[in-house]
């Protein structure tokens, strides 16, 4: 096969150039998608084996339409390592709230059942409320006839499950390049043999890809070097402080809680009957202070943060006074207990302890790539968009990208198209861009709406939130949009 092709090319160079000859020669190169397995070529190369990249690898590897396509997955990390929690009661602080649609996709990949049921926790209720007013909204999975609103899973576990399925079931269909560092900046093959295929230089070998998928995260090289589009947006001036906490188990733990403080939302997401994950959006200085507190003070602070007026929390998180927060909270609790209306107050389970070493902070940014695709390169997941975590959508959008791209590739392959062709990639972009843009904008708007304690804004949003809470039809529509149209049966 290869010698014939080489001969054709040499022949082309030798004889006079005619349009017909050129056309037939090009056709020979473009439609031919089957080559001997050599290490320097791939039909689809996936750079980055995070959840998005690994999920795409699984989806493509199991697709019958792509049986004749050469697939490659490249990552600089060791992809043979599997995550195992230290104990049954230990949880990673990197967790994700998977929508039913994402779960459905993972089921199709055969990955969902690879995660033990103890490490995937559904929640049926969600309560969202405003600290500066009495605005609140309660969500229930049965409103949209779903068994759950979302499922909490640890990201490392999900990643491991995807890699395990790849390894166990698709080893013959995809070449996994583990511990592979790609030389940067990324370039294209200019040897003339290929149509400016993206070229990955792994040192010991080079891979030319018919299409390169950039699932390499926020600092994507595929985006900066090949797609070369602006990654526009803003920094929120906030960090997300995460922690794993042990909670009082007597009230059950199947509800997600989010309180909007003017500094940012504080969310508690259930991981099991006894543990939950916290995500607290805070200015960097306050987050640093909270992360450094001794355990008993941090626990007291978190319990207070779900209940106290924002002005009190500002004093605890600020630097003006040296306070023993645990002791102050004991006093303030007594003061507030007298006036509390137990019927109307929203209270998540009491936090009893924080898991050692689980407190960490990551900066929050809004970003969207102006273009998802360029010649034979396409972006998915964080490489394409970064979103505020307040609606738990980031990884779900990434999985949505992957599901769409997989479907697009399969449809293209089934009609014999070149997977890297602009028309194929544009179909993906056309479907995903508006969906992602809408979600990014919605979360950004919520951040701004709830990011102030100005009385008129608080009054309007409280009014809006309470009216929204009463309108089941509107609630159902919003829930469907964020949960994906598919409900699990």
């Amino acid at each position, binding site marked *: 096969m290869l010698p014939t092709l080489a001969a054709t090319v040499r022949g082309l160079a030798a004889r006079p150039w005619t349009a017909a000859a050129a056309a037939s020669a090009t056709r020979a190169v473009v439609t031919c998608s089957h080559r001997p397995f050599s290490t320097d070529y791939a039909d689809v190369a996936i750079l980055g084996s995070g959840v998005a990249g690994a999920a795409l690898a699984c989806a493509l590897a199991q697709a019958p339409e792509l049986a004749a396509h050469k697939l490659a997955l490249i990552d600089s990390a060791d992809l043979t390592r599997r995550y195992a929690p230290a104990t049954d009661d230990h949880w990673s602080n990197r967790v994700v709230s998977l929508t039913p649609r994402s779960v459905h996709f993972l089921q199709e990949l055969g990955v969902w059942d690879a995660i033990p049921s103890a490490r995937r926790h559904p929640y049926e209720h969600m309560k969202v409320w405003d600290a500066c007013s009495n605005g609140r909204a309660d969500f229930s999975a049965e409103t949209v006839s779903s068994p759950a609103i979302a499922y909490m899973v640890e990201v490392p576990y999900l990643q491991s499950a995807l890699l395990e399925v790849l390894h166990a079931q698709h080893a013959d269909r995809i070449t996994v390049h583990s511990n592979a560092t790609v030389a940067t900046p990324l370039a294209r093959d200019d040897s003339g043999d290929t149509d400016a295929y993206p070229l990955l230089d792994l040192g010991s070998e080079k891979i030319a890809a018919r299409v390169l998928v950039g699932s390499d995260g926020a600092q994507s090289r595929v985006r900066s070097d090949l797609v070369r589009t602006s990654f526009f947006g803003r920094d929120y001036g906030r960090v997300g402080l995460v922690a794993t906490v042990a909670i009082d188990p007597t009230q059950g733990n199947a509800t997600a809680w989010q309180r909007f403080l003017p500094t940012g939302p504080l969310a508690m997401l259930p991981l099991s009957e006894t543990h939950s994950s916290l995500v607290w959006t805070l200015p960097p200085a306050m987050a640093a202070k909270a992360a450094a507190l001794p355990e008993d003070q941090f626990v007291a602070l978190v319990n207070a943060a779900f209940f106290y*007026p924002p*002005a*009190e929390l500002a*004093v605890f998180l600020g630097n*003006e*006074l040296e306070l023993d927060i645990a002791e*102050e909270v004991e006093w303030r609790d007594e*003061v507030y207990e*007298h*006036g509390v209306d137990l019927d109307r107050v929203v209270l998540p389970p009491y936090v009893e302890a924080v898991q050692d070493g689980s407190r960490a902070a990551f900066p929050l940014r809004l970003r969207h790539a102006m273009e998802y695709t360029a010649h034979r390169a396409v972006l998915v997941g964080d490489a394409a968009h970064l979103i505020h975590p307040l609606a738990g959508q980031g990884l779900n959008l990434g999985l949505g990208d992957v599901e769409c791209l997989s479907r697009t590739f399969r449809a293209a392959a089934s009609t014999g198209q070149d997977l890297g062709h602009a028309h194929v990639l544009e179909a993906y972009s056309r479907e995903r861009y508006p969906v992602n843009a809408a979600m990014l904008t919605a979360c950004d708007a919520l951040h701004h709406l709830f990011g102030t304690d100005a009385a008129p804004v608080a009054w309007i949003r409280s009014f809006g939130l309470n009216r929204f809470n009463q309108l089941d039809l509107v609630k159902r529509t919003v829930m469907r949009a964020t949960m994906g149209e598919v409900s699990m049966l």
Partner: protein
Amino acid sequence: MKLYPTHIPTSLFEKVLLTVGGGLKALHDPLRADMVAAVGETTGRAALVRLRDQMLRSSTGRRILRERPIITSETFPPFRLEALPESTLGGAYYHGFMQKHGYVPESRVPVHFIDDAELAYVMLRYRQVHDLWHAMTGLPPTVEGELALKAFEYAQTGLPMTALGAALGPVLLSHNERARLVSTYLPWAVMAGTRAKPLMNVYYEEVLEEDLEALRQELRVTPAPALA
């Protein structure tokens, strides 16, 4: 549900009635301290929350909220104050007010209509330290002096009743007094009230024996221009 001993729980409608009715009565007869107090309570919640939050931001303020000191003849014993020189806060307070005008600490009206125990305490504290603020600013307890002090209090506390009092009170003054109020005392009140440190955060019980001038310097209180 009674949240503190003198609490009289009221609905929103009852509060509106109190505000309107009490306001009219207070205008008609400003010496009805209970009417003035009632209107102050029905209109003052937002300001009290701000005051309470301001106290929470100071370590002394937090101590006051925790210990809730009440000024009575026991905590401010007259015989002890009498022994203090007039150059101290306690001495100026005693000789300038308690003795001269027959004021007794308990003569302040109790709080009834605030539906929160801590905010009710803040309101009570505000009323109780009012006389000490006379000593701090040097304003006499005449109608003119009281109105000037009300303006000063508005700058310090933001309580609507203080503004209402300062705005409507001048009808009781003579023409000359009113002119003097507007030209001299109101500007002073705004300047001094905003310049001074939050005076609700002072633990007065502990600084009675301090030199008044030194205290004024420390708390950035500009005394009022002397009345003729």
